[in-house]
């Protein structure tokens, strides 16, 4: 009796440490992530609906949603195009310096966002190395935010598309060619459909990161209310004015959006795995 019970709880494995490791995992996760995060919702619940609604729909806040969403969307789209091209080039071609380029793609992951922020601002400022060649302002406009978010999001697209592209076997393309398809048909009908879930996943990851990004954007944005003020900056400003309640309300909106995105990403991955990779 005793033995069968024990076997059941241990799921028939001889490997020890289940309760210890799972217990520690839950404890640490609760202290560092769950408990602090739940504060947002507790604090929001203590607000009245009217206060909450008014805070999150204040014109300046609404404008910040538009800036954040719009720029993240455009940057994501840019990265989908160029990230896919870069992944393609890195997987399929050989050219001098390829290894260095491949490594460099990770720079936005490794470089502190504040450093990226000041570097991009200096480059794209009206008198900067790149900015001087443009007749219009890039830094301190929404364009600048898009530049920073493109920088931040690039590796997400490249690094999700790259392995998928690598795993598309040469045989598949040969099969397509021997069945009479042109090169363009092979790309459109065979390669692209297999890349598509990865491209969407990469886009979502970059987009989610861009929505919350602060360090690289805050320098280049110019932070003009109603024009180039991103949502995380509004939270920051409210905190500096000790308006914790207002900050929390807006944070709730951002969190719900993030959770939704996370759910969407998992769903896409689950869906594409289910469809093509059974067994």
């Amino acid at each position, binding site marked *: 009796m005793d033995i069968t019970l024990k076997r059941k709880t241990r*799921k028939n*494995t001889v*490997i*020890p*440490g*289940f309760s210890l*490791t*799972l217990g*520690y*995992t839950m404890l*640490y*996760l609760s202290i*560092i*992530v769950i408990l*602090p*995060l739940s*504060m*947002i919702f507790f604090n929001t619940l203590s607000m009245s609906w009217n206060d909450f609604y008014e805070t999150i729909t204040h014109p300046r806040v609404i404008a910040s949603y538009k800036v954040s969403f719009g720029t993240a969307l455009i940057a994501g789209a840019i990265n989908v195009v*160029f990230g896919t*091209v*870069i992944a393609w080039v890195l997987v399929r*071609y050989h*050219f001098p310096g390829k290894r260095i*380029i*491949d*490594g*460099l*793609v*990770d*720079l936005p992951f*490794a*470089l*502190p966002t*504040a*450093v990226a922020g*000041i*570097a991009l601002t*200096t480059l794209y400022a009206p008198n900067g190395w*790149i900015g001087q060649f443009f007749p219009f302002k890039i830094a301190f406009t929404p364009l600048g935010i898009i530049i920073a978010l493109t*920088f931040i999001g690039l590796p997400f697209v490249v690094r999700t598309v790259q392995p998928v592209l690598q795993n598309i076997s040469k045989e598949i*393309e040969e099969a397509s*060619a021997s069945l009479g398809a042109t090169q363009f048909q092979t790309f459109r009908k065979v390669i692209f459909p297999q890349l598509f879930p990865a491209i969407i996943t990469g886009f979502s990851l970059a987009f*989610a*990161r861009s*929505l*919350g990004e*602060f*360090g690289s954007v805050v320098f280049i944005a110019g932070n003009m209310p109603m024009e180039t003020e991103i949502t*995380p900056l509004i*939270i*920051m400003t409210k*905190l500096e004015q000790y308006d*914790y309640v207002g900050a*929390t309300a807006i*944070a709730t909106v*951002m*969190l719900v959006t*993030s*959770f939704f995105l*996370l759910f969407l990403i998992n769903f896409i991955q689950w869906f594409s795995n289910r469809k093509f990779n059974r067994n």
Partner: protein
Amino acid sequence: MIAPLKINKETSMSMSHSSTKSYSLQESAITKWTLIIISLLFLLLFLILPLLSIFVMAFEKGWETYIASITEPDALSAIKLTLIVAIIVVPLNAIFGLVAAWAITKFSFKGKNFLITLIDLPFAISPVIAGLIFILLFGAGGYFGEWLLQHNLKIVFALPGIVLATLFVTFPFIVRELIPLMQMQGITEEEASISLGASGLKTFLLVTLPNIKWGLLYGVILCNARAMGEFGAVSVVSGHIRGMTNTMPLHIEILYNEYQFTAAFAVASLMSILAIVTIIIKNLIEWKAKNV
């Protein structure tokens, strides 16, 4: 039966001439180089020039100014604080990563996928919010604020707050590298070790750990880079007290906002070197893992 056809040398010569490759299964050279040039231009504008500009700006006023910028007391204390934070945060998250990956990959239990999603959460959350939640908990008006004040303990606007916010932000980095790796390796080796009489800890140290050491190191350097470079979350909880609660990224921000560009880029160049080293180590590990 058909005998192999014999052709005289002359025709065979002319044939070999005509058989130069006239079609290709790969894209044409024009497509290839167009795509390569587009990629390189894009990377030049978005990655290479920004990286280059940091060093150019840092050395704009010469070597001496550079050295002075990174050795002035506030800069040194920022470097020290950044290192302290990383030294505390990285091992804590490494231990968590190993423990959680063990629980998740060596056993099957209900709600595993949900647990993984929870672990991923900090990836999806704005760093500003990551800072905010600790203010809500430990700040002056927070849940524990009163109690902390009475006991004269400081979390927010002090080292513990910075550590907590950094822990939160870098939470998934190591465990996320370990889970797929350990999943792939399965449990047969551990079972073999246990059946040969080794204890759980011995099994972990002698069997599991050697198999995942590169993955662990990979996670550790990524976690370290983010821990040292975190800006948003730390910015919220630090209070920007010069020489006290300023990490390197915050120090860069202050210098930049005070128009001390050269000094800002000098400190930034240190962090860029860290980033480059991180990328190099990452590639070495990838190369190593592939060639083992």
